[in-house]
């Protein structure tokens, strides 16, 4: 009986959790009770066995993986992030009024300019100031200046962020059929690259610099070109990048997550070493790009963009399979597909209503003008010109400082002039362009319109 009482105390006794009196009683009992002493020994052994259990260190890549997941989570959830981040970074692809485009060649879209950004369009042999977004192709050049930055997004392939004073030219955009290279050249400055192993995984992805060729697959990395020092710096956040010197394209080094290397002109790449803290902090900006939604009207920045919008133009929404897809957008795309398949006007209107819901439910200054223009063009496509005007009007009056405001006036002018037979309103829209947006690409369209109406 006494033993049973003592046995309940033994576990606490070995942990030193008994009062002085209890301890004394237990010790007195133990000295004369071999059974309880054995029990005490067994309890101690149990404790020691558990304590002796091998402790392992977390593997180094756990930090990288966690940091990335935390970044993704933060972006999807933090109130400061774009309300579109969840819905639009979703599954979608290319929504266009005629059909989904499933491209064999990836698109490259320059968007989100901050500060002065210029784009050289090789086909036209001219430099334009970046406003809104535009497509780029082979031999085109994107250039940032002091304090400016811009993103180049290729759906299902990569996102590239150009930091200030950087110049990147598009080498080649690859083809799914031939599996040819996707190549960009950096002549100076710094870029952050988020490359994914998506539909174009078969296409080698290379970033060339005056000193090195960097090949990546499903990698997040940074490339910095310092012309004065004649060197290229490469740091990797996730995945690995093969770096080869132009001096000897055979020998290369593999730079893995958390490492960096440097290549001086005419020399072999240095052996990879660990990123310093400040480099690590800098490169972490990569967490902000790549997963960011890109909503962009696929129209040029030139004077014909109003006509392109009404053709109708495709709306580009970046795909991101990792993010949760809100039911709203999923359903919208479903309805949209159905409308196209069944050639059903009713379904089209339903789809359009859902697009409008998205704008209403997830308002965002950055993307709304493009979304609303797209909705207007969709109405135009369906022959519902009044509704189209309403949507364009929302951009014109709601976002007068947006680079798309002049475009909204231009398409309003066209719709009033050509479809609604309302020359005074058309004239007023065109005149607004000349008075309020005299520098905009729409001035040519406005002048033409005014001269047509006055004839």
């Amino acid at each position, binding site marked *: 009986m006494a033993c049973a009482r003592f046995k309940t105390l033994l576990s606490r006794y070995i942990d030193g959790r008994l009062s002085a009196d209890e301890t004394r009683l237990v010790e007195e009992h133990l000295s004369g009770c071999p059974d309880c002493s054995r029990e005490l020994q067994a309890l101690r052994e149990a404790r020691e*066995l558990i304590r002796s259990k091998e*402790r392992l260190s977390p593997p180094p890549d756990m930090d990288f993986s966690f*940091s990335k997941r935390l970044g993704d989570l933060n972006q999807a959830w933090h109130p400061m992030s774009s309300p579109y981040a969840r819905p639009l970074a979703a599954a979608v692809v290319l929504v266009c009024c005629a059909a989904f485009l499933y491209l064999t060649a990836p698109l490259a879209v320059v968007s989100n300019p901050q500060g002065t950004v210029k784009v050289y369009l090789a086909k036209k042999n001219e430099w334009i100031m970046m406003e809104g977004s535009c497509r780029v192709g082979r031999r085109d050049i994107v250039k940032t200046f002091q304090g400016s930055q811009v993103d180049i997004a290729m759906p299902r392939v990569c996102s590239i962020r150009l930091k200030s004073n950087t110049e990147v030219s598009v080498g080649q955009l690859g083809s799914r059929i031939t599996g040819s290279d996707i190549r960009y050249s950096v002549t100076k400055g710094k870029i952050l690259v988020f490359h994914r192993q998506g539909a174009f995984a078969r296409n080698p992805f290379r970033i060339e610099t005056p000193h090195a060729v960097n090949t990546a697959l499903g990698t997040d990395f940074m490339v910095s070109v310092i012309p004065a020092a004649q060197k290229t710096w490469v740091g990797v956040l996730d995945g690995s990048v093969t770096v080869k010197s132009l001096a000897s394209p055979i020998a290369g080094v593999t730079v893995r997550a958390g490492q960096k290397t440097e290549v001086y002109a005419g020399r072999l790449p240095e052996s990879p070493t660990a990123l310093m803290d400040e480099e690590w902090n800098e490169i972490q900006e990569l967490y902000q790009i790549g997963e960011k939604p890109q909503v962009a009207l696929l129209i040029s920045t030139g004077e014909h963009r109003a006509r392109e919008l009404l053709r109708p133009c495709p709306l580009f929404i970046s795909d991101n399979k990792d993010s949760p897809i809100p039911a709203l957008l999923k359903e919208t795309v479903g309805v949209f597909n159905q409308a196209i398949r069944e050639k059903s006007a009713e379904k089209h209107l339903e789809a359009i209503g859902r697009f409008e819901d998205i704008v209403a439910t997830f308002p965002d200054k950055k993307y709304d003008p493009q979304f609303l223009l797209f909705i207007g063009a969709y109405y135009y496509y369906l022959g519902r010109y009044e509704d189209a005007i309403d949507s364009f009007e929302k951009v014109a009056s709601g976002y007068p400082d947006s680079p798309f405001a002049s475009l909204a006036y231009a398409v309003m002018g066209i719709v009033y002039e050509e479809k609604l037979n309302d020359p005074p309103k058309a004239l007023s829209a065109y005149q607004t362009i000349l008075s309020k947006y005299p520098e905009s690409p729409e001035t040519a369209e406005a002048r033409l319109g005014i001269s047509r109406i006055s004839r």
Partner: protein
Amino acid sequence: MNGIPESELVAQSKEGSQEAFTELFNRYKEKIMNYIHSYIGSFAEAQELTQEAFLSAYRHIGVLHDATKFSSWIYSIATNLSRNFIVQRRRRRTESLENPINPEGNITLGDTIPDNRLRPDTQADRQAVQEEIQRAIDALPPHYREVLLLCDGEGLSYEKTAETLHWKVGTVASRLSRARRKFRELFQTQRK
């Protein structure tokens, strides 16, 4: 971030600071990973669950009213995730272990699990003891496993353990006593 008190890091994390939360992760990741590892017995899964535990903590940090209780809170999340993991794995396994894997139907997957206790060298001996400890832990019911791993494995006080498992301190003491006894018994049975 190194010298910042934990409660301050919690407060900053509530404001959405990724940096502060990463510091909390760095302070606790090893402990939590080892706790989960002992709980579920798989290192690879433990790494994954550890990350999940912290991501879940980040998502719900707003509900942690007392910033000084991060430690027991994160152990609590890890405990819940591990417990759920075990339940799900058991469901999957019940089937696979009992299904015969040869056409005659007389060998089951359970028979093919290698028995490391028979390895002769000392390294293997040590390894074998570690595995025996794990097997004995695996055989414990969840409440014994939790109290044993938190008190003896992680060195948490009775009070912290009580906070983590939402038990009374007296319950921790009595269950720990029974858990130690049960564990010793299971460990001995295996050795025979």
